[in-house]
């Protein structure tokens, strides 16, 4: 069964360092998302991506964050200068399109900022 895969599963970094989280969405999907879940809190939307551009982003997704799909398969989230409050589980998701509405999630990448 096709699945969304994410790497790394866990990353520890120092405050101020750049982090790149990688995702391989399901191959025929067209819409891509990043969500995050701070420990003990709800799953929050960060950004959606379609047709090689951001289609929607939340207020969390500030200038420190960026996304790209560099090679047609990977979908990356970059945090330019990490802060302590960026520590969270980051989930990538993909969707086939508007006729299903279903998002398929990866297992997440846990980011710990020290």
């Amino acid at each position, binding site marked *: 069964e096709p699945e*969304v895969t994410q790497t790394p599963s866990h990353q520890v970094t120092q405050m101020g360092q750049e982090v790149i989280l990688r995702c391989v969405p399901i191959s025929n999907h*067209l*819409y891509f*998302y990043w*969500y995050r879940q701070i420990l003990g*809190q*709800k*799953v*929050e*939307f960060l950004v*959606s991506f*379609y047709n090689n551009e951001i*289609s*929607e982003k*939340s207020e969390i997704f500030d200038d420190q964050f960026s996304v790209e799909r560099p090679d047609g398969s990977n979908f990356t989230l970059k945090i330019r200068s990490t802060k302590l409050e960026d520590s969270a589980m980051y*989930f990538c*998701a993909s*969707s*086939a*399109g*508007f*006729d*299903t*509405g*279903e*998002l*398929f*999630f*990866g*297992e*997440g990448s846990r980011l710990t900022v020290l």
Partner: protein
Amino acid sequence: AQSVTQPDIHITVSEGASLELRCNYSYGATPYLFWYVQSPGQGLQLLLKYFSGDTLVQGIKGFEAEFKRSQSSFNLRKPSVHWSDAAEYFCAVGKFSGNTPLVFGKGTRLSVIA
């Protein structure tokens, strides 16, 4: 703005007992509703979804949910809980568009005891 409320943070049930997890939503239009499950160390897996039609929807693993427009609710039920059902359950609301983000509730953690 849309929102989702899961009033129960943690529920404990005995194996074989019935289960109901509550979800209330606030949405300006006809909502599309989802229940996801997150097992420890895993990503989010879709249990079931409601788009239209029959208000009682069946999902995987023996779960069902009922959409009640008058109560703005989409409660998840299972007649007989198994120990493997112990997990975090998230209700989410969205609209029928591939690039629209889902809004999640804070989740309900289910513990199952013998």
